[in-house]
């Protein structure tokens, strides 16, 4: 469904991604693990084009997403409208929730359907209420983010991503900013989503979550996919010394 080939990204002189190749099947849940700074979050951000990348392709169902070739064969950015259309295929949930502080939970969630997808206001609202109910926040629809706990805010953020009815969900260390006792409620939401067959790419530091929900785990080291396989292969029988070292910490 998503095919990434030869993805390279650098910040200034420093090369963060050094040629990532990764194919993700429809309905698959894939976890990206690795040390801080190894490039896993950058990879996720590149997939949503929150970061531009310098080489390589990211395609979905055979169509390259963010760049195209012009008449002379140069690589050029797609138009703003095309980029917006591609972004609607994905939902992103961020580590710091990134909710809009001046909007209620429901307003946060309805914004995408209402204005990106031009859904009628009443339909957008019913979508919003439904997804908020799905993440267990039916009573909190009118609460502002400041009045919600971290776990609740993150669930609103997940609902906001789901409201776009995206095919793919990108989750960027979504439990890292939470108190330990709040992690569970957010992980529960993710577990429920795996039953619905949504394609998910999650960056995580939680090996237990990665083992539990993902079909495959990719270990990223120094800008490359160092090892990839089923949770059992990667976590129980790591073949590379680097992964072995990473897991033993």
């Amino acid at each position, binding site marked *: 469904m998503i095919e990434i080939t030869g993805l390279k990204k650098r910040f200034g002189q420093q090369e963060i991604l050094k040629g990532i190749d990764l194919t993700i099947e429809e309905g698959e849940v894939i976890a990206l693990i690795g040390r801080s700074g190894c490039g896993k979050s950058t990879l996720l951000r590149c997939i949503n084009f929150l970061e531009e990348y310098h080489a390589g392709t990211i395609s979905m169902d055979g169509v390259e997403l963010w760049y195209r070739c012009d008449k002379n064969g140069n690589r050029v950015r797609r138009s703003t409208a095309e980029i917006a259309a591609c972004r609607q295929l994905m939902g992103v949930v*961020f580590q710091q929730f990134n909710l*809009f502080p*001046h909007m*209620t939970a429901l307003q946060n969630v309805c914004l995408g359907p209402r204005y*990106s997808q031009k859904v009628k206001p009443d339909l957008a609202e019913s979508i919003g209420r439904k997804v908020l109910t799905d993440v267990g926040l039916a009573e909190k629809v009118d609460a502002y*983010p400041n*009045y919600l*706990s971290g776990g609740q805010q993150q669930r609103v953020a997940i609902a906001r991503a789901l409201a776009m009815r995206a095919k793919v969900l990108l989750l960027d260390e979504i439990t890292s900013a939470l108190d330990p006792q709040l992690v569970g409620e957010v992980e529960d939401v993710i577990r429920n989503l795996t039953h619905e067959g949504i394609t998910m790419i999650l960056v995580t530091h939680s090996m237990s979550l990665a083992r539990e929900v993902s079909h495959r785990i990719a270990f990223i080291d120094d800008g490359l996919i160092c090892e990839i396989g089923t949770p059992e292969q990667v976590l129980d029988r790591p073949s590379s010394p680097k992964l072995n070292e990473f897991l033993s910490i």
Partner: protein
Amino acid sequence: MNSNDLIMLLKASGYSITLSVGAITGGTILATLLVLLAFSPSRILQFIYRVCMWVIRGTPWLVIAMLVFLSLHGMSIRIGRYYAGWLALSICFSSLFAEVIRGAIIAIPETVFDSTKSLALPRLIVLRKVLIPLVLRQGLPPYINVCVMTVKGSSILSVIGVWELTYASREIIERNLTVFQTLFAAAAIYFVICFILDRLGRNLETRLAARGFAHDLAEGKQND
């Protein structure tokens, strides 16, 4: 100082208020245009913004007022002292308003734009639904601050012969030498105007706080 003088002071304060409101409006419009320069992609326009800041902010209000008045006079543009004063005051405070707006914009965390991008929101919607509401909320306290300064700053227009509260007090003093009574009365009127402005600002802040904003400042953050 008799009751006629007091009525005169109150009448003059009406002019001060009109001038201030006019300068706040004019200054804000000018500031918005200036801020557009500051956030334009062109380096040259950004530089022009900074030059405007240096010049306007670095020049005393009194000097700007005289410059505006005298150069309009020199160019034979006769718009009257009142409008010249309004223009001068708007220019003086445009730089302060511009920095307030710019500050409120750069206070918006970058992560907000990650959200608007990933939600694929159109630019106009981002402006209307996210940017402007956040700027209004973050910029409100310093904005009210500059508004209060504008009210007090309107007094310098007396120098270019604009009849307002300070000018009127000087007239009264020159007529009947009641220096302290008159000045105290004028100061009290300025105080009341500024106080009302401050209350209005606070009122707005609390109302916004009730809508999920600055809540942590208003009544202690309820978290987790």
